[in-house]
């Protein structure tokens, strides 16, 4: 049999870096540990470089268990970017909170590898293992700040629900396997070519349970309950990581497996998906209004955005897929950036996440203020920022797919979202004072991360063409 390692390159790259970091952690003295961050970043940069090099290639390996195409590569870029921002923004944070660097970075890297595997998997088993690698790493990352009882509680909740969801997901895989006689996506879709009459009934149940698993991972109502609690409890950079990378991975895989490979089943889950989308948007935005913690608000907002992404998913077709990918690209920097800003407020042992902590920030720390304003506006969907462009494409695909009603509900929801996003700006610019002795003793790296995110937000907003082309190529590479 052929052993073609090329398709695995990006994943392996990240994985390897993770291992190296883990090993070096054992030999480094405490004052040397900062090197680990840079090693991890180096690994990520290499990975993204490889992804760029491989762009456009279409290459299967390991008996068709993985299939590396532009789709996977584009998602890889998103994951890599997200984890890079996470690492940059956590350097100071983990120092402050006495978190083990080695484990932290390597876990982030392993999670990233898991995500990559999820999206390049061409076999349900590989996908499942990738998913588990990611999930377990993130469970641990959530609870990694052991001194915080909130963190441990968050970890517990996340783990419990995650495991529960895994059970359903796995059940789904089992049923699909039983119906089609294979776990290989290629063969499965091959099986689905024959008319639905021939299908054993439980393939629907299988697809359904699979969908439940995905819905859980992306935090769609009513499977969203873990999101606010976990995001709030987890270390802020990790929350950012989750809300960007994990969600992106879940959506990407969902897109690929359910919406594309199992698309023949589509007819049957268009309706529940619509309901899911509506619920997710509305509840997410509604609950975000009454939050007192910015971090938790961001958690709810990420639920709401999952709702918008679901619209793209429902719309399907080329426009839908394209807009989904673009939205993921647009969503990543603004959310990561927002969480990074929240991180930048945190002090030793005391996370400052309340709205009150933002009071007067805009004028005391113009850079942070401006960046946060950008992120908030972008999340709220103001042009010419990434968030708006993303929404525009999503709604556009919805209208084109005949889901104008969804689009309308979507815009009404973004109106709702304006309420709480602007509240942050109200705090930063229109409320006086703020907390005394806030030292902002953050490493410059954090600011670099925020700066990058802000730049990306503006760039994707004003000149989205390039990114659009990528997402188009990526989506088409699925066929």
């Amino acid at each position: 049999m052929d052993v073609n390692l090329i398709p695995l390159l990006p994943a392996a790259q990240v994985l390897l870096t993770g291992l190296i970091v883990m090993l070096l952690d054992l030999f480094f003295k405490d004052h040397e540990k900062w090197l680990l961050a840079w090693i991890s970043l180096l690994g990520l940069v290499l990975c993204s470089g490889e992804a760029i090099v491989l762009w456009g290639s279409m290459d299967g390996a390991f008996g068709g268990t993985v299939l590396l195409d532009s789709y996977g590569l584009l998602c890889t870029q998103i994951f890599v970017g997200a984890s890079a921002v996470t690492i940059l923004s956590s350097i100071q944070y983990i120092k402050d909170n006495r978190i083990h660097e080695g484990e932290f970075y390597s876990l982030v890297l392993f999670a990233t590898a898991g995500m990559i595997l999820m999206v390049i998997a061409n076999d349900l088993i590989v996908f499942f293992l990738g998913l588990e690698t990611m999930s377990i790493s993130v469970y641990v990352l959530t609870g990694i700040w052991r001194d915080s009882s909130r963190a441990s509680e968050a970890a517990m909740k996340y783990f419990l629900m995650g495991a529960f969801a895994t059970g359903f997901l796995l059940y789904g895989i089992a049923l699909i396997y039983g119906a089609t006689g294979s776990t290989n996506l290629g063969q499965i879709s091959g099986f689905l070519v024959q008319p639905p009459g021939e299908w054993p009934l439980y393939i629907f149940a299988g697809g359904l349970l699979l969908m439940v698993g995905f819905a859980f991972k992306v935090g769609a109502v009513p499977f969203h309950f873990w999101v606010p609690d976990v995001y709030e409890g987890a270390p802020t950079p990790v929350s950012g990581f989750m809300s960007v990378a994990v969600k992106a991975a879940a959506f990407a895989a969902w897109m690929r497996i359910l919406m594309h490979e199992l698309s023949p089943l589509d007819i049957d889950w268009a309706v529940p998906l619509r309901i899911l989308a509506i619920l997710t948007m509305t509840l997410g935005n509604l609950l975000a209004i009454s939050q007192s913690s910015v971090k938790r608000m961001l958690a709810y907002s990420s639920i709401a955005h999952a709702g918008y992404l679901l619209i793209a998913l429902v719309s399907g077709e080329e426009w839908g897929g394209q807009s989904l990918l673009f939205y993921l690209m647009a969503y990543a920097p603004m959310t990561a950036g927002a969480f990074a800003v929240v991180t930048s407020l945190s002090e030793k042992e005391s996370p400052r996440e309340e709205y009150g902590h933002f009071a007067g920030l805009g004028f005391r720390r113009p850079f942070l203020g401006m960046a946060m304003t950008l992120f908030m506006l972008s999340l709220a969907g103001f042009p010419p920022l990434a968030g708006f462009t993303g929404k525009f494409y999503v709604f556009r695909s919805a209208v084109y797919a005949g889901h104008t009603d969804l689009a309308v509900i979507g815009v009404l929801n973004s109106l709702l979202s304006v309420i709480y996003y602007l509240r942050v700006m109200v705090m930063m610019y229109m409320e006086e004072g703020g907390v005394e002795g806030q030292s902002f003793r953050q490493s410059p790296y954090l600011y670099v991360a925020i700066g990058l995110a802000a730049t990306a937000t503006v760039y994707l907003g004003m000149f989205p063409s390039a990114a659009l082309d990528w997402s188009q190529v990526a989506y088409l590479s699925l066929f």
Partner: protein
Amino acid sequence: MTPEQLLFFILAGLLVISSLLVVFQRNVVYSAIALVAALFLIAIFFFTLHAPMVGVLQILVYAGAIMVLFLFVIMFLNPAALEPRHGFWWGLGSMAALLLALALIPLLTNRQAMTNPAANKESFGSPEQLAKSLFTDFVLPFEIASVLLLVAIIGAVVLAKRER
């Protein structure tokens, strides 16, 4: 009622009972033991389904390793022995699960009755065959699994080890 069916129903009954014990037994240790029993029974099912190797693994990994770990933790934490029973909540949960089963079963009942092809192939499920597909088609998952376990270990260490 053929002997196989008889056997099946006996085993199935035992399995259900033991898993019920796992869930409704208020003493943690007892539930653990009940779980071990359940795992054993499932292993036996594996044997009857021409998956001897998996069955063996089931016993070794689960009943062996994992359950020991469980018991160890139980001893380590020794929580309050008996946990109070909350009628309403328990009823609710059971009801929900029952509904789940009810919803699943009609979806699971197959249209065309399938014969058991594995029955006539002798070597099916033998260690060789498992190993063969494991190290040819599924070598990648195999590697990933190792990573997964590695992650788990790191995680366990990070989370559970005492303060430095």
